[in-house]
């Protein structure tokens, strides 16, 4: 199986390990990821909050490149990229006028707008059985808090792959990996992603609440599928500790790392050693 790949900026920098583990697990699952040639940043939050047309054009350029490469489906592991690209794709499909305008700007027609999927959808697609089949050592009985963050399952109309209030798709995947998902309250609460640098105080507060709920419900680990969430929840734990004395560390893993571990890949192969809060797996 071949599928287009849009790593996005984070996966080439702050979230290298995410990129590494996505590629590794895909390889084991027999999926060939074809990176979009010369892709550009989707503009993340900064573009759409200042200029709608800028945001739309940045995404559209990527969609154009992908369609020229003949890619019908694109994997965007970053939830923010996924959200931007799919919202833009939707707008281009629904508003022919906007599409025309953007095409004029880009100087080319987008012949076929590819479908954007996220990592959860990819793993769902490959199928549970296959995963178990490939499974090496499991993350047996690890109590896991699956964190979706805000953009993976919203808005509800667009990302119909899961319920936007009570999503369960990640839970299903980690269950197959042998872990025990917990029921908790903050799985779709926002961590403040975009404000990480300019309003660190907000991000620290929000991330603290999220991690505290996970801890109270006895989670051993938090799983996420978004590099921004990961940065806030992993790297910011130091700041959280500074502000909230009682905070206890909790490791935060990418979904791909977790799946990789249960396939028997090593921490190094998956880049887990790059995290700020170390993860000592009970079973690996």
């Amino acid at each position, binding site marked *: 199986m071949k599928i287009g790949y849009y790593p996005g*900026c*984070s996966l*080439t*920098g*702050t*979230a*290298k390990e995410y990129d590494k583990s996505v590629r590794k697990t895909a390889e084991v699952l027999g999926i060939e990821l074809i990176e979009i040639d*010369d*892709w*550009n*940043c989707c*503009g*993340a*939050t*900064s*573009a*759409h*909050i*200042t*200029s*709608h*047309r*800028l945001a*739309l*054009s*940045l995404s559209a*350029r990527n969609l154009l490149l992908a369609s020229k490469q003949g890619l019908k489906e694109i994997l965007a592991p970053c939830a923010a990229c996924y*959200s931007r690209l799919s919202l833009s794709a939707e707008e281009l499909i629904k508003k022919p006028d906007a599409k025309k305008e953007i095409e004029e*700007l*880009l100087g080319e027609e987008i012949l076929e707008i590819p479908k954007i999927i996220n990592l959860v959808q990819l793993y769902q697609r490959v199928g549970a059985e296959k995963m178990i089949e490939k499974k090496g050592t499991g993350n047996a009985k690890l109590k896991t808090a699956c964190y979706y963050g*805000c*953009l993976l399952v*919203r*808005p*509800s109309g667009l990302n119909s792959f899961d319920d*936007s*209030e009570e999503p369960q798709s990640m839970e299903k995947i980690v269950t197959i990996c042998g872990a025990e998902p917990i029921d908790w309250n903050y799985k*779709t*609460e*926002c961590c*403040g*992603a*975009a*404000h990480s*640098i*300019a*309003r*660190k105080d*907000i991000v620290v507060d*929000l991330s603290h609440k999220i991690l505290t709920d996970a801890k109270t419900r006895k989670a051993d680990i938090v799983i996420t599928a978004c590099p921004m969430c990961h940065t806030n929840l992993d*790297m910011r734990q*130091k700041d959280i500790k500074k502000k909230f004395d009682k905070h206890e560390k909790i490791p935060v893993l990418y979904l791909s790392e977790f799946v990789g571990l249960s396939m028997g890949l090593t921490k190094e192969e998956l880049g887990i050693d*790059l995290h*700020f809060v170390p993860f000592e797996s009970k079973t690996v």
Partner: protein
Amino acid sequence: MITEEIIRNTSQNPNICYQCGKCSAGCPIRNYMDDSPNKIIRYIQLGLYEKALNSDTIWLCAGCLTCSTRCPKEFDLAKFMDALREIALKEGIKVKEKNLLKFHKAFLNQIKKHGRAYELGLVREYKLATGDMMSDVDVAPAMFMKGKIGILPHNIKDRKGMKDIFEKTEVKIK
């Protein structure tokens, strides 16, 4: 005038909002805002544009879509906030959350130059702009050591195309 522009840009009619407050109730950033998000819509309904555009709320909104997902009237408040920010920039309104805007500008400048985010450039530019030299001094070296921040930017090939896009679409801040 402004209402019309908003309606045009967002395909949304602010009059459908019946001020139930569900958006504000679920907003993760609510506690840091001067005005509740539903109040921003109310200002627009009443034609109090100044109040809406000058509020720090529109800048603090993190675009998390919680409000849009839960609104009983299917009002896409997140998108509405986008439109208000864009108008505020065009109108040259003084932004209360200066650092947030500076961050976004710095971020976009990297993309304009390189086509992709360039962390070191971003940090450098943001710090120069804000004068806030101390923030994140502790994590930056660690990031660097882990190889998460590169020294060199990731340049895309078609950098001219990128510049083009920005020139044609970027909102010029007054």
